[in-house]
């Protein structure tokens, strides 16, 4: 592998870290133009393809980490890339420029909805839209459930336990997830010899 893909080495001499304003621009663009998921593909295009700020290996490592950690994956991804490029202040700038513009848009939409008042067909439209979005979200869960089958029966059993506990029995989510996280980490540690 070339030294460029090794994150333990300092960036090459030709590399100029972007200024904070330069960093804010692509994340603001991603935040405002991303609809319905698939945001990490945009980050790849902006950070790896278009600007060469990080390598593909760094990108993939950051994606893995963003999925392990709690929090919106795209926020964790922005945070790590911001840190990689400009340290702690880079993290703050990347996350804020990602979140603040769509926050303003979403509140404006909320205001618009409220000022229109209750219209039956509008509520029906939003309900159908919500149902479709739920299907989209479920398809992500279903695909990862199918992928997990190649590791055996235990991932499906864990997923099923979450569904029974949280949806079926409506137990409090925090203790359910902490308890099952301990089980999941224990089983994975035994099954996957790292």
């Amino acid at each position: 592998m070339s030294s460029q893909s090794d994150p333990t080495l300092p960036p090459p001499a030709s590399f100029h870290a972007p200024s904070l304003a330069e960093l804010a621009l692509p994340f603001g663009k991603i935040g405002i133009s991303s609809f319905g998921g698939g945001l990490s593909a945009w980050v790849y295009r902006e950070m790896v393809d278009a600007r060469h700020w990080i390598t593909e290996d760094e990108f993939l490592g950051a994606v893995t980490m963003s999925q392990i950690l709690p929090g919106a994956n795209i926020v964790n991804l922005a945070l790590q890339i911001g840190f990689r490029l400009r340290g702690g202040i880079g993290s703050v700038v990347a996350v804020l420029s990602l979140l603040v513009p769509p926050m303003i848009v979403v509140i404006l939409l909320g205001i618009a909805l409220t000022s229109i008042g209750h219209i039956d067909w509008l509520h029906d439209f939003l309900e159908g839209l919500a149902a479709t979005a739920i299907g989209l979200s479920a398809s992500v869960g279903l695909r990862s459930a199918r992928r997990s089958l190649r590791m055996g029966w235990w991932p499906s059993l864990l997923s099923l336990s979450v569904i029974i506990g949280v949806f079926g029995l409506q137990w409090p989510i925090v203790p359910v997830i902490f308890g099952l996280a301990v089980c999941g980490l224990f089983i994975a540690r035994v099954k996957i010899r790292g």
Partner: protein
Amino acid sequence: MSDENIYLTLVKVFAPLSLISIGGGQSIVGDIHHQAVDVHQWLTQGRFIDLFAISRAAPGPGALLTTLIGWDVSGFAGALVASLALFVPSSLLAYLVTRAWHGKREEPWYRWVQAGLAPLATGLILASALTIIRATSGGASPWIIAGVSAAFFSRFHKVNPLPILAIGGLIQVLVARFLA
């Protein structure tokens, strides 16, 4: 609702959810619904579904549903407090881990930690989907639309979802007008 300070309540609801939202914002939507509609009665089922739909159709991460609920409960200050409560704890953790891990090589523990936590994220995403669909106004059509949508996106997961979301909305309008 009790006399307790509303901002404190928002923090108490969203900050713990922040730290268990493995797999991203969509995994905790079910519990957000439970807290906002059942426990604290900030909004009705119908209003929740409206806000949820807006958060999906609008740009940005779906976790901005929290911003909308905070705004609905207590205006701009509510939006700010709820958003901070949801994004700061997980971001702080991510920051500390990133800083501790920065520059280190990828270690084998990545693999088993991810393998151990991924099934929980999967379970949470599916449980949230079921919770929200149960919160729709009833009738079979939201279940059928969600099922067809899940099958469609399982097969064509690279399709831009926005037009499909609009089609789903239009179908429900037609169903409510002509079949109900």
